[in-house]
C-alpha cells in the first residue's frame, strides 16, 4: 500500500484564490450561525456541521462545471452552498420554513438544489455512492462530459455500498469522483480503531484498480488542484478517482455530541491548521491586502445575516403540503 499525494494545483491567479476564500468564509459563517440557531432552538431535529472541513467543499466545488453534479451526505450544508445554493433558502430549510430550499420536506440532512447541480444530501451511510455512479453513467451514455462528484466520510469506507459503487464505477470507467473526507472519527469512534488500513479510502483504491490519492483537506488549493486533475481525467473518459482528503471536524458528530472523546490537545492542534486561518495567511503572502480579506469576511457575514432574517421571517409550510410531490404529478394518490 503506497498512498500518493494528489496532483498539485496549477499556478493560481489572485481571482481564483479570492474566490476560494470567499467560498470558504461563507460556509464558515453559515455553519457557525446554524449552530447559534440550534442553541436558540430555532433549528429542530439534528444537524451535522461541516466546521473545519470547508476547504474540501470549496476547493472541489470551485473546480466543477456548472452542470456537474454534487452528491453529499447529511453533513451537506457546505457542499450545497459551495455550488451556489441560496443561503437564505438553505437556512430556511434548517428552520423548517416554506421558503426553505426543499420547502421543509427535507431538512438539514437532505439539503440540495438540483438547479445548481447539488443533487441532494443523503443520510444513509454509503447510499449516494452508487447513485453518483449512476449519474456518471448517464453522463457517459449521453456523452455530456459531466462529472458526478460524491462526498462522504471516513466511516462510509466500511459499508458495503462503498465497495459496490467503487467497483462498478471502475469497471464501467465512469466519470465519477469519490471524495472521502477523513475527519478521523466515524460518528463518536476513532476511524483507526474500526478500520483495517491506516488510510480508509486511499489504501483501498488499489482494490478497484484506482490510483491512491491523498490530499490535505485543510488546504483549499490542494483540494482544488486534486479536483481539477480528477475531473479532467473523468471528462476524458479515463474513469473514476478516489481521493482521501485529510481533515478534522471542529465540533461533534451532530448536535447531540460534545465530542468529549477526543484526546486532549487534538482539537487545538487542528485549530492551528484551520483551513481558513491558514489561507488568510497565504492570501497575504500572495499580496492580498488585509482590508480585502476583511471585506470578504464582512460580505459573508452580511449574506448570512440576511439569510438568517429570511429564514426567521419565512412562512411556515402549509399542512396541506404534506401530501404533495410524492409523485411526479405533484400529488400522493395511491388509489382512485
Amino acid at each position: 500500500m503506497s498512498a500518493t499525494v494528489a496532483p498539485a494545483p496549477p499556478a493560481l491567479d489572485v481571482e481564483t484564490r479570492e474566490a476560494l476564500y470567499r467560498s470558504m468564509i461563507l460556509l464558515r459563517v453559515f455553519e457557525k450561525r446554524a449552530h447559534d440557531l440550534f442553541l436558540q432552538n430555532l433549528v429542530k431535529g439534528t444537524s451535522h456541521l461541516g466546521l473545519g472541513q470547508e476547504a474540501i467543499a470549496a476547493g472541489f466545488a470551485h473546480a466543477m462545471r456548472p452542470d456537474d453534479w454534487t452528491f453529499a451526505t447529511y453533513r451537506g450544508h457546505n457542499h450545497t452552498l459551495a455550488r451556489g445554493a441560496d443561503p437564505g433558502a438553505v437556512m430556511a430549510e434548517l428552520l423548517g420554513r416554506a421558503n426553505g430550499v426543499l420547502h421543509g420536506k427535507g431538512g438539514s440532512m437532505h439539503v440540495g438544489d438540483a438547479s445548481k447541480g447539488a443533487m441532494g444530501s443523503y443520510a444513509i451511510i454509503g447510499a449516494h455512492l452508487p447513485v453518483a455512479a449512476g449519474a456518471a453513467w448517464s453522463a457517459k451514455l449521453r456523452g455530456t462530459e459531466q462529472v458526478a462528484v460524491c462526498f462522504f466520510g471516513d466511516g462510509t469506507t466500511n459499508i458495503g455500498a462503498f465497495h459496490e459503487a467503487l467497483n462498478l464505477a471502475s469497471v464501467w470507467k465512469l466519470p465519477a469522483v469519490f471524495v472521502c473526507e477523513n475527519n478521523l472519527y466515524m460518528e463518536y469512534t476513532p476511524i483507526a480503531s474500526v478500520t483495517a488500513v491506516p488510510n480508509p479510502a486511499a489504501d483501498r483504491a488499489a482494490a478497484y484498480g484506482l490510483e491512491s490519492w491523498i490530499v490535505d483537506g485543510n488546504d483549499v488549493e490542494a483540494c482544488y488542484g486534486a479536483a481539477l486533475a480528477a475531473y479532467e481525467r473523468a471528462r476524458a473518459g479515463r474513469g473514476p478517482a478516489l481521493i482521501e482528503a485529510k481533515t478534522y471536524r471542529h465540533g461533534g458528530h451532530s448536535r447531540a455530541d460534545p465530542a468529549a472523546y477526543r484526546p486532549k490537545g487534538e482539537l487545538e492542534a487542528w485549530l492551528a491548521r484551520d483551513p481558513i486561518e491558514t489561507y488568510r495567511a497565504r492570501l497575504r503572502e500572495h499580496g492580498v491586502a488585509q482590508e480585502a480579506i476583511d471585506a470578504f469576511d464582512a460580505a459573508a457575514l452580511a449574506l448570512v445575516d440576511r439569510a438568517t432574517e429570511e429564514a426567521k421571517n419565512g412562512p411556515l409550510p402549509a399542512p396541506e403540503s404534506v401530501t404533495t410531490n410524492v409523485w411526479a404529478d405533484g400529488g400522493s394518490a395511491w388509489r382512485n
Partner: protein
Amino acid sequence: MAQLTYRDAVAAGVAQEMERDPNVVILGEDIAAAGGVFKTTVGLLERFGPDRVWDTPISEQAILGAAMGAAMTGLRPVAEIMFSDFLAVCWDIVANQIAKTRYMSDGQVTIPLVVKTGNGGGLRFGAQHSQAVENWAMAIPGLKVVAPSTPADVKGMMAAAIRDPDPVIFFEAKGLYPTTGEVPDGEHVVPLGAANVVRDGKDCTVLALGAMVPRALDAAERLAREGIDAQIVDVRSLVPLDARTILSAASASGRVFTVEENPRLCGWGAEIASLIGEECFYDLDAPVVRITTPHVPLPSADVLEDAARPSVERIASTIAREMAR
C-alpha cells in the same frame, strides 16, 4: 395477435420502449450476453447494443443506485433484480432513496425507473429464492407496484411502467414465465392502476394477483360445476390501486375473497379488506375472506411448497365452504 410466453413478453415490452425512446437502458446481472437467468431479456443486447444493455456485477445496491442516479439525470433505466428476495440486500436504495428522494426534495428531482424482478414460488427454490414480496414494496410511500399475470399485460404494463415518471416495482411471476398467451400486435400499452375483471360472476368476487390469477380462474371453473358463479378480478396494480373497480365489484356480489401468494401478515389483501370494510361494509353479506400463504418462510420440497402456496384446490374448497355458510 401473436402467441408469446410470459418471459418473452417481458423482453417484448422492454424492446418496444427501447425502440421508442433512446433514453431507455437496461442493466442487471446476466441480462445482456446471457439474456437473463430467466431469459426475460433475450435479444436486447443484439438489437440495442452494449451502450444500452449492461451486465453488472453481483451488486444489487450498485444496480439500483446506478439506476436511480441515471433516472435523476435524464435516462429511463430498467434495472433487473434477479430474484425479488434480493431486494432485501438493496432495500435501502429502494425504500430510502428511490422512494423518498422526490418527496424530500419537494419535486426538485424525478426518478423514472423500473425495477423488474422475478417474484414468488413454484420452482422449488426454497425460502430465499421463492418469496412473494409485493407487500413489502406496497408498504413504502413513493413506489408504484404492479404484478401482471398474462403475457399481454406483461408487455403492456412494462411499457406503461417505463413511460411512467415515477419509480415502478415490476413483479414478474416466476412460476408463470413458461406460460403463453396472446399479445396484441403493434404498440401495446396497458395503463397502471387499472384492475381487470377477467371472469364475470355474480355470486362472489375473487381478487387475485400475479401467479394466483390463473389459479383463481381454474378454481372458478370448479366452483361453476358446484353451482357457484365466481367473478375473478386480476388486481394487477397494487399502487396505484383501482379501488373503484374493486369496491364496485365487492358491492355488487356482496362476497369477497382475496387470493394472495404473500405470507399472511400485512399481505396486500389486508389493505384491500380494510378498504372494503370501511367503504362498502353494508353491501357485504359476509366478512372478506383472505386465502394466503401461511405466515411461514416458503419451504423447498415440492409437496411442502405446494401445501404452502394457495392451490386451486384450496382456493376452490375455501370459497365453497364459506359460500355454504
